[in-house]
């Protein structure tokens, strides 16, 4: 099997790109497009699984693209962290694709031209995979650009006034982050004469401290905007909620985490003796608190959850900033947990929107009675997000707090308090949302929705008459299945916490020994 691995590693990038081409050609045959897209993402998921087990057993794998050996050629490197991210992202992208396609098939509003959706979605998947596998700073930039350009298209699908408005902010902010990243690459090349991350790992530590600092800050700025770290997070709650539900789900789940992945990678590999620990810890604490306070002020569920997304990025950054083995393992575990939970929440909210006609807590009500299945699908990931035991959110937070205590310093202790507070406030926000949108009588809300009120009254009458009520989910079954799979996956994170935590620990060990990474990539040279 070890011989097979080098062949498999480029495929998560290559297959979706080929798929994008095929679906573009097939743009008139919607069904064929859908079959191709689903088949390709399914294949990517299988490949990611094989790569994960292969890498876990045989150590990091390096593939020199086109036979050009590093450091001159481009390399793809799959270590445990990349493989873990790859498998989770392929699961998420597959489920969201199924969800999106069945939504499109049942949507008569004609707001989303399917022919554009499939190719750009596949390019997005290829870009994300490329970012996870890149062993070269410039290739990482190319991966970023691939998924960013695809995300511009997906965010402005249909080009309605509202989406264009949100899209303009999103595109400009992303462009600024890209230019900062590109500038950083230029300066790094000027300073070290290479963009290969393994070589950079050796050479950056030889640079003068002030030059190192400039490079470090520039890279963190570029990635920080993508990862939505306070104070670079203002754009996120503004632009994500207007996109179609599945698009928001995959953006919220994955795109910010690619930023976090890039931060983990550069912090451990390029700037292992980092001097920016304190600013990062402070940024992490502020991200948590400011994000969740923003969520409290909102009345739209999509915006509430977008703000909690910003807030919880703080936890991952906390783990990364600690830089210890436990801290990194916790950050990795928390990232995996957050990708799945955030996606599940946004998918569930998409279903709520379909069922109740809105996502505003000012007009929703009675969903608990009208659609118990939907309620469960929202409630489980919501509790998970706020860190209620025994869900994975709790495990991740406990691990982070333990890593913080291990540090025996006052700043991590302050962050633990901030983290606990954020967790409680998340619970408050989720509880309030649940009360308003799911528990209230729909007639009591500020802007009642006639359909919901009528249905609720009818339901009440049948109940009082002692008759049986045939509950209707009111959304396409494929969408429910796709959402359920993600919700179940979020529970699996708890059930399989031990092996997963073991994997995260081994991945963190990999990260703690950048020299192994270097010798893996550069071979005998080093």
């Amino acid at each position: 099997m070890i011989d097979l691995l080098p062949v498999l590693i480029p495929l998560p990038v290559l297959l979706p790109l080929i798929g994008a081409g095929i679906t573009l050609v097939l743009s008139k045959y919607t069904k064929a497009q859908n079959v191709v897209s689903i088949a390709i993402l399914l294949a990517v998921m299988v490949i990611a699984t094989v790569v994960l087990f292969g890498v876990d057993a045989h150590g990091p794998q390096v593939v020199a693209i086109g036979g050009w050996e590093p450091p001159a050629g481009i390399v793809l490197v799959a270590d445990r962290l990349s493989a873990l991210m790859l498998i989770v992202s392929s699961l998420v992208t597959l489920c969201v694709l199924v969800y999106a396609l069945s939504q499109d098939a049942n949507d008569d509003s004609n707001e989303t031209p399917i022919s554009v959706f499939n190719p750009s979605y596949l390019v997005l998947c290829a870009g994300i995979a490329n970012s996870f596998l890149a062993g070269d700073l410039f290739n990482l930039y190319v991966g970023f650009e691939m998924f960013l350009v695809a995300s511009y298209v997906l965010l402005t699908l249909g080009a309605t006034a509202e989406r264009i408005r949100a899209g303009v902010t999103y595109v400009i902010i992303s462009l600024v982050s890209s230019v900062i990243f590109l500038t950083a690459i230029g300066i790094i090349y000027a300073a070290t004469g290479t963009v290969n991350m393994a070589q950079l790992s050796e050479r950056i530590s030889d640079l003068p401290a002030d030059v190192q600092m400039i490079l470090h800050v520039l890279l963190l700025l570029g990635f920080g905007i993508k990862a939505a770290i306070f104070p670079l997070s203002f754009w996120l709650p503004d632009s994500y909620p207007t996109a179609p539900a599945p698009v928001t789900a995959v953006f919220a789940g994955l795109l910010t985490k690619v930023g976090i992945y890039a931060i983990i990678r550069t912090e451990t590999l390029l700037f292992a003796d980092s001097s920016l620990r304190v600013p990062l810890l402070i940024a992490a604490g502020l991200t948590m608190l400011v994000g969740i306070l923003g969520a409290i002020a909102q009345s739209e569920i999509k915006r509430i959850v977008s703000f909690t997304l910003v807030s919880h990025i703080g936890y991952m950054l906390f783990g990364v900033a600690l830089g210890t083995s436990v801290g990194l393992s916790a950050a990795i575990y928390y990232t995996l947990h957050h990708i799945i939970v955030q996606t599940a929440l946004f998918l569930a909210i998409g279903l709520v929107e379909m069922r109740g006609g809105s996502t505003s807590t000012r007009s929703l009500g009675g969903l608990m009675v009208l659609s118990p299945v939907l309620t469960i699908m929202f409630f489980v990931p919501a509790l998970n997000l706020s860190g209620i035991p025994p869900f994975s959110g709790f495990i991740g937070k406990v691990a982070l707090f333990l890593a913080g205590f291990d540090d025996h310093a006052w700043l991590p202790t302050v962050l633990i308090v901030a983290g606990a507070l954020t967790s409680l406030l998340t619970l408050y926000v989720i509880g309030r949302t649940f009360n308003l949108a799911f528990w209230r009588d729909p007639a009591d809300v500020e802007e009642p929705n006639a359909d919901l009120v009528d249905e609720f009254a009818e339901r009440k009458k049948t109940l009082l008459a002692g008759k049986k009520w045939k509950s209707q989910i009111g959304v396409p079954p494929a969408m429910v299945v796709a959402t359920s799979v993600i919700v179940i996956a979020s529970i699996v994170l708890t059930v399989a916490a031990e092996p997963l935590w073991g994997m995260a620990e081994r991945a963190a060990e990999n990260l703690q020994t950048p020299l192994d990474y270097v010798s893996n990539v550069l071979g005998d040279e080093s």
Partner: protein
Amino acid sequence: MSMPFVMVVAMGVLFAAGIYLMLERSLTRVLLGFILLGNGANLLIILTAGRGSVPLTDGKNLSTEGMSDPLPQALILTAIVITFAVTAFLLAMIYRSWRLMRADSLQDDDADLQVAITKVIDSEAEASTDYDDTEFGDEAESPIRGAVDLDDDGTPDEREEIAAEIDDAPNPAQADAIAEAVVDSQTDAHSANEAEAAEEATDAKEATDADVATDTEEAKDTNDAKGTKGDDA
């Protein structure tokens, strides 16, 4: 590695002008700013190769001595293509924004504004139901039911009725009559208070008049008249 000074300065100017333009609210300027910024970054990358030398190789002498660094050229090609594609997309989006909203500027987020407005209304509503007190009685901005009538002009409901009556009156004379009747009834009921208040007002007015000493005789007359009216009542 040596860099041509002029090019380094040009790069700095591109960056500075680009950032300046990107801070504008107008989208076309932002686009121009992005183009400058992108070109600045590209120039930075090509400059990292140092001074260029020609030609790369003549095919026979394959030594790398004196060759310019090919890697930045490969990097910049990719970066230029990306910048170009994104510029095209941005341009299309700005055009679409113009078609839809007739605005070449960044629009505010309605949902954001709504949150801001909602909060103000909420806090006012809360204040009126929970905290409104007897300090202002029925003169409070949104008085509670049964508040004390502090200045004897009737409860808010009564005042509204009177206002409606005045509005409904077919001619101005009749409206005046109604208003007068209301004033009479109120002054009758609370004559003592009214008279005292009026007297005080007159005293104060006269004092000021004396101080300033610019008021005409006429003004004094009016003041006197007011005082008389109060006494009569």
